């Protein structure tokens, strides 16, 4: 393996660790959202739908557009629009961009060489956050239905 390839792998390992660390930090906030969402009329499939979208799309904007549409359609304010949950979640997901920037800055990579890295890390962080959220929500839903 050449020197450059070794450096690439090392960088990838550092990046994965940084994302994992952030993911652990998000657990508490994701749990708070799950606690709020459980008090709405949302069911498991709707929250899982958001998680599935996040894990399959290559765009952060697909996730935020999805949420915006759900908030917009919830005229009865019983689901995503209840007590501003969807709006707050949207703001928090968009705010993960700052964490992505911090991670990329600390990596010390040349941003000109990979100008899309920050966006891709942002997408990964959104996926991590929503993975926690969906897991907590499903757990609470089972408890609620017992």
């Amino acid at each position, binding site marked *: 393996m050449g020197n450059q390839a070794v450096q690439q792998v090392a960088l990838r390992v550092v990046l994965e660790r940084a994302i994992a660390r952030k993911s652990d930090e998000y657990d508490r906030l994701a749990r708070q959202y799950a606690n709020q969402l459980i008090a709405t009329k949302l069911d498991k499939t709707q929250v899982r739908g958001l998680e599935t979208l996040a894990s399959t799309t290559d765009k952060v*904007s697909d996730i935020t557009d999805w949420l915006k*549409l759900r908030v917009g359609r919830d005229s009865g304010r019983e689901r995503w629009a209840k007590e501003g949950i969807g709006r707050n979640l949207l703001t928090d997901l968009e705010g993960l961009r700052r964490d992505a920037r911090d991670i990329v800055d600390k990596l010390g990579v040349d941003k000109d060489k990979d100008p899309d890295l920050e966006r891709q890390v942002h997408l990964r962080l959104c996926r991590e956050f929503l993975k926690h959220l969906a897991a907590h929500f499903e757990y609470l839903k089972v408890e609620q239905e017992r």
Partner: protein
Amino acid sequence: MSELAHLLKRKQSIAAWSDRWQAEAARFADSHRDLLPRRITSAQLYGLGNVVRSARRYADIERFIRHQAEKAERAGRLDVQGYWNDLKDALGKLRGEAQALLKTLPFPAGMDSREALDALHRELAELYVQHLIAHSSYQTAGAKEN
């Protein structure tokens, strides 16, 4: 560059573009917020979304928008006519974006440069409209909350 590498690079470049331009589409919706949801209804916007998704050439999208503008003019709804004309201009300008993106992406196999440009222009318009519809819906919900 192999065909797979080309496809991946194209997909990533378009995803990055879409995330970058989400804010621009949201600004368009914000600057026409007084027309939502009564003068420009969600049915009209979803109709636009369907046309944009099914269009085979960019000209099909432009024709639909021009038709909407003409209908509004005949009905004396000049503000609505203005909306559609502004949207026609906004989407038309995306041709320049498509040209810039194409400079960084080789053409897909079997496609000439004009076809490739038109296909990319149509694809960017579809993403812009996706953001526009989502933000307009979200904004309408916000107006109801206030």
